[in-house]
């Protein structure tokens, strides 16, 4: 695999910036399509193709017009995305449970993230938490089966302890959503 020329990396980076604030699905489709055209080209061929593709700001303006999006450069959407991500990360710790619900609600109403990203952001914490509890309950069952004197107290608190996974994963999820909002698509390696 050849190294991606600098000119391609800069172009894609500029395009990502110009498209910020557009719906995630459309933004990813445009960047994916443009990247597809620049993959595997050497510096000279890529520069030529970039010339044909045109200025990222122009592409983004055309895309916004075609999508019927009138948000100017999507600055407001990004501010909204920051608040939503931080609420997912820390909201539930500041205002137990409710903070997360508000944050996730904002994430689901936003156009910044794709449905897949929203699902990951929402479900990672409860799913991992549930797995943690299930594993600790399983350990508890096998421990009580093996031992004549059941150790309910300790394993029960172990199951409770594994619930701590939830806030930790929400912090990671919230920060990940923020990173995705800042730069939804990575340039190719």
């Amino acid at each position, binding site marked *: 695999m050849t190294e991606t020329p600098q000119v391609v990396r800069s172009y894609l980076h500029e395009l990502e910036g110009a498209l910020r604030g557009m719906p995630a*699905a*459309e933004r990813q*489709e*445009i960047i*994916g*399509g*443009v990247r*597809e*055209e620049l*993959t*595997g080209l050497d510096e000279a061929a890529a520069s030529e193709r970039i010339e044909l*593709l*045109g200025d990222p700001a*122009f*592409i*983004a*303006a*055309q*895309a916004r*017009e*075609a*999508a*019927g999006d009138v948000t100017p450069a999507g600055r407001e959407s990004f501010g909204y995305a920051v608040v939503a991500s931080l609420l997912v990360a820390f909201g539930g710790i500041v205002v137990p449970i409710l903070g997360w619900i508000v944050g996730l609600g904002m994430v689901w109403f936003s156009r910044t993230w794709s449905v897949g990203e929203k699902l990951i952001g929402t479900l990672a914490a409860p799913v991992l938490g549930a797995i943690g509890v299930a594993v600790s309950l399983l350990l508890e069952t096998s421990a009580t089966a093996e031992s004549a004197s059941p150790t309910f107290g300790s394993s029960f608190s172990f199951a409770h302890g594994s619930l701590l996974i939830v806030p930790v994963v929400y912090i990671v999820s919230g920060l990940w959503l923020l990173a995705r909002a800042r730069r939804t698509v990575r340039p190719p390696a």
Partner: protein
Amino acid sequence: MTAVPDIGTQLRKGVVEFCVLGLLGREPMYGWQLSQQLTEHGMIASIGTLYPVLTRLRDKGLVTSYEQASDAGPVRRYYRLTPTGTGQLETFRRQWTPFTATVSDLVGEGDRQ
């Protein structure tokens, strides 16, 4: 005071989706191919216009996409018509000629009376 929209732009907006359906009716195409064809014919100004159109067509179930590796180049996302898309294209074809004839009748031809 609102600016008077360019007539060409308005007309293109109305038909660009069907032009995409028409091109895909010939064969599945990838984004750049579609963009080149439409740009050459003056239907879109840049690839930026194309993808929101494709997204809309896909949301309506008229177009679907799949990835295919090329022999020498990158993996490409191809777009093709769904059966609904084919039906929609047929309907458009049936209506387009009588529609343009009607409009020509109503608008008239300026230099002739």
